[in-house]
């Protein structure tokens, strides 16, 4: 909304403050002035429409003058414009206007008048300047007057070329109704509309038909537009339902200065004074008794609020007398009756946003200026804040990872269709990324671009993109993200999982070392958080990197699952006796994976075997030919109660050798 300093000053005769000062006052007490521009000797303030969406009264310049009058405690003097010279125009009494409102809940009031014999021409300079100052293009005197009065009062007017309407026996029928599916309407801006039953339209009705002439509250029809040939006009000043106008304007994607105002919910009391001023400007006459006015009063809204000034002063921590409070509210248009501390406030019809005592407190607080209120802190008994273990767990993981050289990234929650619906699965301890989520459940209807059209169900695809990008600049790195993914099941509110995802990348193609590194990192995390055994067995994904040299491996885990299987550390006695270590070397088939062999050794040896690690895996030319690899494992034996003698271990080793030969055709070296 644009506010002209010169314009509002005409209603504030005692205003002495500069435009810059006014901008400051508006920002502090109403809504932030976003920009200040100049037009000729005028200063124009802009406030975002959205900041005023509860205040239809502020879509008229008078509304701002009223605000300034309250903020500065200065008089508001409203005045009407004089007739426009040479426009002529006579109110006609020989025709009867028949207004029919089919949907009273969508159109509460329809006021109109017929004026004959107008002379269409350019507007006088002062009127054109007013319009240009608020960014409206001057068109001709009649259209300009309707636009000017809309900007002044906040009430849109529409002028029809009366000679384009059908008159039947000196009767002019105007109907306000919902459109029908087959109906069409060409608007002033040239748009052809296919109307539908959720549109509200104005029609010219006769005993035979009912022809659409305007999309109610949004835009008039081309056929009855004011042209240079226009001589007789019908001016409409109506009140339409805010929700209806917004719905219809959004549906057709047509917005206008009129729809902008109607969708805020305009005061139905405004139709008459705005139309009266139009009549005055066009005819020089103020015969308001000739206006045809169809007013279907709804149940009256709550129009008074009682407050206690002591409560108000406590709530705001200020100290105003009932008289000062009353004076501010009167400047804002209320009528206040004061009975010592009690104030009975009658609300003006243009302030439908005032409903409760808090609304009154806000009026006083903002006019008083929030910056002058002495701050306090809430009066509350000491109580500890509830602890959030999950947040702390995630931070612990972040700390462990960054301390070991991993970098945290944040990636969008949106992915493209190719990446959509992938989720982690475990198949015999091997992590795999499988397509298993119904894409319809994660698709975004009003997406920004195809790249961002689904919500992610795994962090791995977006981390893979980051890996490819960073691989252009770094030889090796570990990246991770902790974030939410969706796990939708049918069309209920989707489950959300907090997952940790990490990828290790290295340009160097020694896969084995890279694999060992990521597994080491995984194990280190599990060690640090005290996770249970099952996670240690997990084997990472191998990540496919398109057009990128190097290899990448990754893990992803649901953190709720992980946290539920972490145990708080308990002290274990540190053994006094040394451990005994023994190595075992053997040849096995190249394809044979190690995990089952290690498991076999663990079960065979029992509790006495504390630790087992892979010391070496290698392959010489001869082994390659024989399709074999050599593996060396180191076993650590320990009995907390005593030293272990070789005689105790030997039978275990023999048993292990035997099983390796039998189950894996191993050749013990």
């Amino acid at each position, binding site marked *: 909304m644009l506010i002209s300093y010169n314009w509002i000053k005409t209603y504030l005769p005692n205003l002495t403050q500069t435009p810059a000062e006014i901008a400051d006052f508006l920002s502090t007490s109403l809504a*932030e002035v976003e920009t200040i521009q100049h037009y000729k000797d005028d200063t124009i303030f802009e406030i975002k429409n959205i900041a005023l969406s509860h205040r239809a009264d502020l879509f008229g310049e008078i509304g701002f003058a009223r605000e300034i009058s309250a903020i500065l405690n200065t008089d508001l003097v409203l005045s009407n414009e004089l007739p426009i010279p040479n426009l002529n125009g006579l109110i006609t009494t020989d025709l009867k206007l028949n207004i029919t409102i089919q949907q009273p809940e969508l159109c509460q009031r329809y006021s109109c008048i017929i004026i004959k014999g107008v002379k269409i021409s350019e507007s006088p300079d002062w009127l054109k300047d007013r319009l240009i100052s608020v960014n409206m293009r001057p068109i001709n005197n009649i259209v300009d007057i309707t636009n000017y009065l809309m900007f002044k009062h906040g009430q849109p007017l529409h002028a029809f070329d009366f000679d384009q309407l059908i008159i039947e026996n000196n009767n002019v029928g105007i109907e306000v109704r919902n459109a029908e599916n087959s109906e069409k309407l060409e608007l002033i801006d040239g748009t052809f509309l296919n109307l539908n039953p959720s549109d509200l339209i104005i029609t010219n009705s006769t005993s035979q038909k009912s022809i659409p002439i305007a999309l109610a509250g949004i835009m008039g029809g081309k056929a009855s537009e004011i042209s240079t040939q226009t001589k007789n006009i019908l001016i409409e000043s109506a009140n339409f339902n805010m929700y209806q106008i917004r719905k219809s304007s959004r549906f057709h994607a047509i917005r206008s200065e009129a729809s902008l105002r109607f969708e805020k919910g305009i005061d139905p009391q405004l139709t008459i004074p705005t139309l009266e001023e139009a009549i005055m400007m066009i005819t020089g006459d103020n015969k308001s008794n000739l206006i045809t006015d169809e007013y279907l009063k709804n149940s009256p809204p709550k129009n008074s609020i009682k407050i206690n000034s002591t409560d108000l002063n406590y709530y705001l921590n200020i100290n105003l007398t009932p008289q000062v409070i009353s004076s501010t509210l009167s400047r804002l248009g209320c009528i206040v009756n004061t009975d010592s501390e009690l104030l009975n406030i009658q609300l003006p019809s243009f302030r439908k946003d005032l409903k409760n005592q808090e609304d009154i407190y806000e009026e006083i607080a903002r006019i008083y200026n929030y910056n002058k209120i002495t701050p306090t802190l*809430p009066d509350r008994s000491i109580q500890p804040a509830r602890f959030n273990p999950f947040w702390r767990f995630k931070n612990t993981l972040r700390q462990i990872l960054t301390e070991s050289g991993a970098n945290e990234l944040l990636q969008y929650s949106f992915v493209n269709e190719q990446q959509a619906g992938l989720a982690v699965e475990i198949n015999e301890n091997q992590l795999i990324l499988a397509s298993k989520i119904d894409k319809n459940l994660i698709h975004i209807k009003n997406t920004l671009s195809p790249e961002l059209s689904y919500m992610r169900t795994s962090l791995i695809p977006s981390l893979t993109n980051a890996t490819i990008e960073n691989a252009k600049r770094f030889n090796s790195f570990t990246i991770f993200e902790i974030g939410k993914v969706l796990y939708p099941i049918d069309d209920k509110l989707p489950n959300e999982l907090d997952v940790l995802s990490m990828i290790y990348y290295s340009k160097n193609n020694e896969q084995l070392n890279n694999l060992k590194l990521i597994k080491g990192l995984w194990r280190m995390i599990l060690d640090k958080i005290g996770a249970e055994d099952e996670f240690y067995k997990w084997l990472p994904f191998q990540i496919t990197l398109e057009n990128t040299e190097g290899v990448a491996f990754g893990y992803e885990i649901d953190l709720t699952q992980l946290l539920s299987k972490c145990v708080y550390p308990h002290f274990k006695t540190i053994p006094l006796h040394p451990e005994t270590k023994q190595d075992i070397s053997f040849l096995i088939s190249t394809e044979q994976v190690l995990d089952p062999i290690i498991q076999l050794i663990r079960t065979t040896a029992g509790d006495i075997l504390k630790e087992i690690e892979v010391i070496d895996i290698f392959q010489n030319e001869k082994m390659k030919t024989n399709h074999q690899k050599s593996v060396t494992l180191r076993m650590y034996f320990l009995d907390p109660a005593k030293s272990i003698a070789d005689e105790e271990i030997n039978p275990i080793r023999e048993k292990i050798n035997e099983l390796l030969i039998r189950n894996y055709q191993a050749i013990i070296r």
Partner: protein
Amino acid sequence: MNNTLIDPTIPVLPIDKGYLHPITQTYNEIVEIFMAMGFELVEARMVNTEEAVFSSLNFPKDHPARDLMDTFYLETNYIPIPHTSSMQNTLLTTRKPPIAAVIAGRCFRNEKLDSTHEHTFYQLEGMYVNQKVRLSDLIGTLKTAAQLISDRYQLGLEFKVLSTYFPFVEPGIEILARKPNSDKWLELIPAGMIHRNVLISGGLDPEIWNGFAWAIGIDRLTILKYGIDDIRWFHSGDLRFNQQF
């Protein structure tokens, strides 16, 4: 020992180090401030219902105030949250007042990307509900927190309070901040007294209980803190960005 054999000026051996994302760091620092003030921490759902996002927060259907949030919709009509206020109703219905909580969450709005606009951003919502809460308590709490933030980041900020409008608060205010020697005021914390309709939706009697709520833009604060020139760096995934913090 012969010390002359060692050249102490030899180059360093680089140690691999990892970095936390700057958004994470800001979150942790700000959450710490509010926890010290007695606020519990809750995380927001990423996707929520129309009821949680709008209706329970006094946004009527087809009301122009909904334009405040350029909202994404899933095919299923659930909403990737446009604000962390979407958790207010959950807190009101699952906690017994007095309630003092901050809510962390990633939010989404259907905005075109440029250096100052992101479709993905981060909020820390705050909420306080008790008996006889005053508007001056809101201003005091936020000014105290804002001062602690300014001190922590050595920003030397100056603050002012403006009137503003959001459907879920009444009165509605905004705390603005300005760096020393700057004439540009930045919107730092939109806030207000919780609207009685929000309390009623949450099952509380507004004649007994009232309170205040606010939201801090974590990305905006991080930009202010480090002087970052373009909001798009946050999700760039570029390690050259992350490794600066």
